[in-house]
């Protein structure tokens, strides 16, 4: 018995790092880690760090000057409003779609999931083009919109449509697996006890999905604020009117106004850093407990 215990504990000491137990291979992990870090550094880390270096290399005065520019302030406001409207819309859609998919059994479920995923596979430029073709002057809705004097393309509504389109799938994708795993027992119990649909939603479903939903919101927000291609096609890119922050960055760069471009870029890079930090926190809250169970 004592012998068995002994060998057991020996095994458990070895098993966390079986690779290192072979003296011959002791260098392999170090080499592989070094290659991985080198590649990540070259492809991702150096370019990302460069945004901050360029923005702060000349001190704070170019940054402060840039943020006095009205066209930059307008671009920030436009990007914030796009996200502020796209987020609630995509939340309502994401929750409805996740509910419809996980709480019903029907044929064509896989097809519906693929359609929800389509915005990820369609090129942003094609997405923008489709909006122009549908709502533009020659489009299906064009004459109706023109007759009623509603401007969609090269104006805010089309930019909003583009933003909503590209950031559409995130919330549904995050919430679907949680609802699937949660099962229907709790909802049925609440229903038996006399709760109505809204009560079930707020008191049973939301507490279960909240971290996943928040995670989806963070991803939606990052995409909504950062989208360039689709918005670029439909916006017309008029400074202070239809120029969102990512478009402003490109415009400043094209005009050789590199300092201003980096001042605006650093804001978006900060957004990315905040997104990653939140993602890290929320991922631990959503995925880890489930994986361990």
């Amino acid at each position: 018995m004592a012998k068995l215990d002994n060998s057991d504990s020996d095994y458990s000491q070895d098993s966390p790092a079986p690779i290192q137990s072979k003296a011959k291979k002791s260098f392999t992990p170090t080499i592989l880690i070094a290659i991985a870090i080198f590649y990540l550094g070259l492809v991702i880390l150096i370019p990302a760090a460069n945004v901050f270096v360029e923005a702060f290399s000349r001190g704070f005065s170019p940054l402060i000057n840039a943020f006095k520019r009205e066209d930059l302030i307008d671009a920030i406001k436009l990007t914030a409003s796009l996200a502020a409207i796209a987020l609630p819309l995509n939340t309502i859609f994401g929750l409805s779609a996740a509910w419809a998919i996980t709480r019903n059994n029907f044929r064509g479920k896989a097809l519906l999931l693929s359609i929800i995923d389509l915005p990820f596979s369609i090129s942003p430029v094609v997405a923008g083009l489709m909006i122009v073709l549908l709502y533009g002057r020659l489009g299906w809705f064009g004459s109706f919109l023109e007759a009623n004097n509603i401007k969609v393309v090269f104006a805010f509504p089309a930019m909003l449509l583009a933003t909503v389109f590209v950031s559409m799938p995130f919330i549904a994708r995050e919430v679907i697996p949680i609802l699937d795993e949660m099962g229907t027992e709790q909802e049925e119990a609440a229903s038996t006890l006399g709760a109505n649909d809204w009560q079930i939603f707020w008191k049973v479903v939301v507490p279960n999905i909240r971290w996943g939903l928040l995670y989806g919101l963070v991803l939606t927000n990052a995409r909504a604020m950062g989208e360039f291609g689709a918005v670029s096609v439909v916006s017309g890119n008029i400074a202070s009117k239809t120029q969102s922050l990512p478009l402003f960055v490109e415009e400043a760069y094209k005009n050789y106004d590199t300092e201003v471009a980096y001042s605006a870029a650093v804001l978006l890079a900060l957004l990315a850093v905040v997104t990653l930090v939140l993602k890290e926190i929320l991922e631990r809250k959503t995925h880890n407990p489930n994986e361990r169970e």
Partner: protein
Amino acid sequence: MVTTKPRPDRKRQSNPVQKFLGKIPWTWVITFTYLAFLVILPIAAMIAKAAEEPFGKFWATATSPVALSSYEITFVTAFFAAAINGIFGTLIAWVIVRYDFWGKRFVDAVVDLPFALPTSVAGLTLATIYSDKGLLGSLVAPFGIKIAFSRIGVFVAMTFISLPFIVRTVQPVLTDLEKEIEEAAWSLGASGLQTFIKVILPPLTPSILTGVALGFSRAVGEYGSTVIIASNTPFKDLITPILIFQRLEQYDYVGATVIGVVMLGISFISLLAINLLQAWSRRYG
């Protein structure tokens, strides 16, 4: 949404169609209305617009020399970017899952940066460091290699944006992989390389291919970072999404639509391929 609600004055008539419509849960109504307006209708509008063209003209526009060269530049460059990430992305996933080292959590978080960083910022910073005078561009400039404003620049941008797809697809599969089989292979005398090729690689292959397909599909459609780092010269480094944009700028809606439909068809094919690959990798699970 409005049309599916039975009108109040007709509520008492128990028309079977209205009864059926009234029973549709509102979550379905929202889901389908939203998808119809945002996804189905725009796709239909574009295909209908392209279908107005006689087939001969459609074909001529879709296969014009500029378009053909843009397909070649887009797909070949995206393929190489996704393929090299297939190798290094798998390596990064392996290192994150299997080894413990200082700063591992930071490395894990950095992988997601291309998802979070807006593409125009990525393009801006890549164009700066890979320009002739930039941090990395100046290292290769003496050898006559130009990265920014060339096809290599397009490759660099595509590599940047597609890397997380491979790492994040391979990582969970690698986490679930049972170590016992590898240990058995070792204890039976297999070398590290033999174990990797014969034991680890086969169950990982579907997920690596899925990741590469996802990365490829993203790289093919990429516009923001590539438009900034490339010179966008036809036959040199002009990729298809940028060609569509240029056609639109010249008010050539037909040209833009035809090439857009080609891109859309390729998106559908990629999506199908990815779904099949995912079904294949699930069989290993």
